[in-house]
């Protein structure tokens, strides 16, 4: 019996030519990687999960503007385990963006783009933009409120490209208006074309990683002046007892742990939170407060904080600058050092970028720059009794939309100054005139349409608010 099995194995290996794959890709000597080098393996595993769950969803999804939304609802609420497949797809997509940034930042810290790995990096740059496109186009296919307004925002970014902007918008939409063709185009790109491109590029990326290896310990420890230097060093590391290992199973075991941990996280998020919420169906006539998916929060906050002089150009220039900076990086950073010890600029850049991304994301959850109508008048702080006039003013404060921008004792919107902490003493008359006709340089509408009596009551309230506790 064992002879039969041995012979069968030998036959299979010979006829399917498994030997060269085993020798050249699996059982080969490589430089020792650290456990956190598993981000590449994580990305690969997430890609597999995304392809499988995505393919399963095409069995239900209907790429027609009239029925797409209902098909997503059917998949989520009626099809057995449909929510699970959608959930895995959603959280894998978000996690992939996170890991993608991790991967890029790690290569910047490592100098992983240096000779002879420029090709690996350049293919990675295209993969980066392809994955960002996928992480955006995916949630457009939901065809809900978030989708339609995200689509408008994206097309407006193209509109800002000089000369050809308007033509590009028409090209993307498949017509002068968003319509049937817009969705079929997005579907074709998200489901067929870009995944095909990603698979091809990932294949080549992995081939180059097998060919050039990952940055070894000696490469980080000593200056490397040329591609030949690197090859000699790498070979020495791969074959040494201390700095080398066998790719399969040793490297795979280490990076696999990280990949499985992140898959576990995706699974946990799916089971706890389920797939992304489905909002009202895409339309162009209902009031909406749309918000992008969480992996774009930092970018949205960044746009909100820009002054109006550069904001419209920024959305065009920023991605272009990032693209060229990434493409040129291996040719600009030609120093002999790799790793963090002698490359403080790389460490500084990554630390600043991570802090910026996290703090901008957190700011977006509060969106202190957004004014929006609020139905409720600000509450009266505990232990404070308002005069009849001030109480009437409090209600008028809401009726005239003052609370669309102003908070009172920390309650409400934060676009404009909190009414309980107006700087400098203003007299009743000064307040009255300020509200009626604000100074030209203040971004506040004039309230000259308010009857004088109403204005008096609001002033009563604003004056009363000066005695409110400042923190709530």
């Amino acid at each position, binding site marked *: 019996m064992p002879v039969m099995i041995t012979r069968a194995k030998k036959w299979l290996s010979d006829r399917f030519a498994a030997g060269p794959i085993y020798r050249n890709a699996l059982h080969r000597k490589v430089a020792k990687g650290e456990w956190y080098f598993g981000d590449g393996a994580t990305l690969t595993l997430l890609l597999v999960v995304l392809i499988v769950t995505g393919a399963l969803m095409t069995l239900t999804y209907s790429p*027609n*503007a*009239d029925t797409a939304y209902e098909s997503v609802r059917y998949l989520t609420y009626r099809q057995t385990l449909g929510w699970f497949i959608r959930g895995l797809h959603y959280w894998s997509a978000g996690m992939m963006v996170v890991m993608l940034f991790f991967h890029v930042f790690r290569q910047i810290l490592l100098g992983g783009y240096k000779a002879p790995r420029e090709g690996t990096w350049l293919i990675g740059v295209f993969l980066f933009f392809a994955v960002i496109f996928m992480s955006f186009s995916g949630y457009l296919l939901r065809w809900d409120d978030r989708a*339609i*307004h995200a689509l*408008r*925002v994206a*097309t*407006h970014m193209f*509109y800002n490209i000089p000369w050809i902007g*308007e033509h590009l*918008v*028409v*090209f993307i*939409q*498949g*017509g*002068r*208006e*968003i*319509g*049937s*063709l817009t*969705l079929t185009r997005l579907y074709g790109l998200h489901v067929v074309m870009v995944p095909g491109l990603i698979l091809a590029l990932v294949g080549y990326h992995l081939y180059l990683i097998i060919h050039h290896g990952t940055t070894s310990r000696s490469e980080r420890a000593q200056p490397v002046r040329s591609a030949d230097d690197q090859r000699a060093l790498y070979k020495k590391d791969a074959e040494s007892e201390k700095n080398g290992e066998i790719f399969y199973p040793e490297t795979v075991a280490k990076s696999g742990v990280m990949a499985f941990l992140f898959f576990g996280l995706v699974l946990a998020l799916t089971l706890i939170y389920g797939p992304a919420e489905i909002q009202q*169906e*895409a*339309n*162009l*006539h*209902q*009031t*909406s*407060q*749309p918000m992008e998916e969480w992996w774009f929060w930092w970018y*949205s906050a960044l*746009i*909100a904080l*820009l*002054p*109006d*002089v550069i*904001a*419209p150009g920024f*959305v065009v220039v920023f991605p272009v600058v990032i693209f060229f900076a990434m493409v040129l990086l291996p040719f600009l950073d030609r120093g002999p050092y790799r790793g963090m010890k002698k490359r403080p600029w790389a460490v500084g850049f990554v630390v600043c970028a991570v802090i910026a991304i996290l703090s901008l994301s957190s700011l977006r959850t509060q*969106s202190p*720059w*957004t*004014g*929006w*109508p609020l139905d409720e008048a600000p509450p009266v702080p505990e232990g404070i009794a308002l005069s009849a006039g001030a109480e009437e003013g409090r209600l008028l404060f*809401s*009726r*005239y*939309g*003052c609370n*669309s*921008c102003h908070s009172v004792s920390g309650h409400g919107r934060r*676009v404009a100054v909190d009414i309980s902490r107006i700087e400098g003493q203003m007299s009743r008359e000064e307040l009255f005139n300020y509200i009626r006709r604000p100074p030209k340089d203040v*971004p506040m*509408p004039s309230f000259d349409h308010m009857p004088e009596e109403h204005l008096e009551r609001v002033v009563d309230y604003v004056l009363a608010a000066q005695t409110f506790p400042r923190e709530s």
Partner: protein
Amino acid sequence: MLAINAGGFVVAGVLAIPGMITAIAPGFIGRRREMWMPVAPLKNFPPGETTRAFVDIERGDWSQSLRTQLIYVRREPGDRVVVFSRNCTDLSCPITWDPGSRTFLCPCHGGIFGRDGVPMAGPPNRPLYRYDNRVREDGMLEVDVYSVPPMS
């Protein structure tokens, strides 16, 4: 060898050129310069006020959704009518009209516009897009839905 390479380029061209043309084509089919669509009788809009209104879009494709577009009609006291697009000029987010403060507020990045559509705060640096409008003899207000950019 040269012939084989040239053959490859010919095949690539036969696929790529018509491929690109057909991908671009839908943007040009049935394209008109203007499209006047009715909104509502002018008498429905009180003078001096800004009112929500809707206009239907004719698309000529196979799905029926997204045919209704929200717009804001401002009728000045002297019968002059201004019709605003409901899309912010920063990144086309859907603005809302706040009748209390008489401002247009954008939900995304902090854009605020005055009742005349002029930006007051936030990233936008262009006034709200205005639809070309006219009043028919029977008093119906019409707008040209092609008079604003294609994503608004």
